[in-house]
């Protein structure tokens, strides 16, 4: 079988998933979209400003240099910053998707079993959270381990809240276009700690 034959077989599948939503229902939903657009969106801009303000004023941290200056003359923001806080929590801010291995190493050195990737290929050695409980219980657990950091792509990790045998999987995904300064979001989840996944 050559590629053309394989492609033909693959293309035959696309007619087998019909979309049944009536066009009237789509248009009705479209009217809701239009109405939603009339509400000005400022939250994103405020979030970005908060992240920059934090980055400029941060004093401590382990970091990876950014690829180029940002934030005005004399200021160079790190691609990411890891800062241990007085209460033992660790604040992580990611501004550029560079050096995930360095971030992973820093987190592990700070006592956070972590797997960090900045591509759509997560570490295949990572297994899902081993603990039981309902989804809401697991959600509650995660929300006690990692909380929003008050800025865009910033989070605060509470290592003491991590259950034994558990680590964090941190990754990022571009939303609109790739590149180190492209629009992206950072996500975090609980995984089973292992040498291959989280280093311990």
């Amino acid at each position, binding site marked *: 079988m050559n590629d053309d034959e394989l492609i033909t077989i*693959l293309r035959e599948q696309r007619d087998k998933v019909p979309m049944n939503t009536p066009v009237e229902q789509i248009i009705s939903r*479209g009217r809701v979209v239009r109405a939603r657009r009339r509400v000005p969106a400022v939250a994103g801009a405020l979030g970005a400003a908060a992240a920059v303000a934090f980055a400029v004023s941060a004093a401590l941290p382990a970091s990876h240099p950014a690829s180029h200056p940002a934030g005005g003359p004399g200021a160079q923001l790190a691609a990411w910053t890891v800062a241990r806080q007085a209460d033992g929590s660790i604040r992580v801010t990611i501004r550029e998707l560079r050096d995930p291995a360095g971030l992973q190493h820093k987190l592990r050195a700070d006592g956070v079993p972590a797997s960090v990737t900045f591509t759509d290929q997560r570490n295949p050695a990572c297994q899902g959270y081993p603990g039981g409980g309902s989804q809401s219980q697991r959600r509650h657990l995660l929300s006690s381990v990692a909380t929003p950091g008050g800025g865009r792509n910033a989070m605060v990790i509470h290592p003491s809240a991590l259950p034994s045998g558990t680590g964090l999987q941190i990754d990022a995904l571009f939303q609109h276009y790739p590149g180190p300064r492209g629009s992206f979001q950072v*996500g975090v*989840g609980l995984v089973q700690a292992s040498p291959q996944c989280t280093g311990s």
Partner: protein
Amino acid sequence: MGTQRLDFAEFYREAKDECLFAVVVSVGDRDTAQDLVDEAFARAWASWRTVSRHPAPAAWVVRTALNTGISRWRRRRREVPVPDLGLVADRPAAGGAAGSSVDPRIMAALLRLPARQRQVVALRLFLDLDTAGTARVLGIAPGTVQAHLGRAMAALREDLIPTWQEENQ
């Protein structure tokens, strides 16, 4: 379709199935894909003056659906544990495309591809975009599109052809 102004209902009728299938392949779940495509078509209707002049309105819909899916996924990932990736990859495809008669082996093979390869396959093969159009939609270089497609085809050949050969013996 080109730059000619289209009637939305006509566009929807012609493009809805291929858009849905492209998104099903990309996200791996029929119900999720259906909702994302519904939302993307609704946004297309809300911006129809612009979208109707887009060189590939169906690609606009698929890209919008995928971007919406990424945003939702990221919001959920803030709240719920990461699933076992092996389980996701090996989840029975028939369940993912429930209600359809898609060959489950083909869907399973597609879902085993990395996400970016699946998106390239969806746009190049199922939406019939050319390499340049696929590159524009995904925001990657044309050469990267070709590389992803080449790897995807190799993986699909390796995955599917032995099974078919065994059946024919």
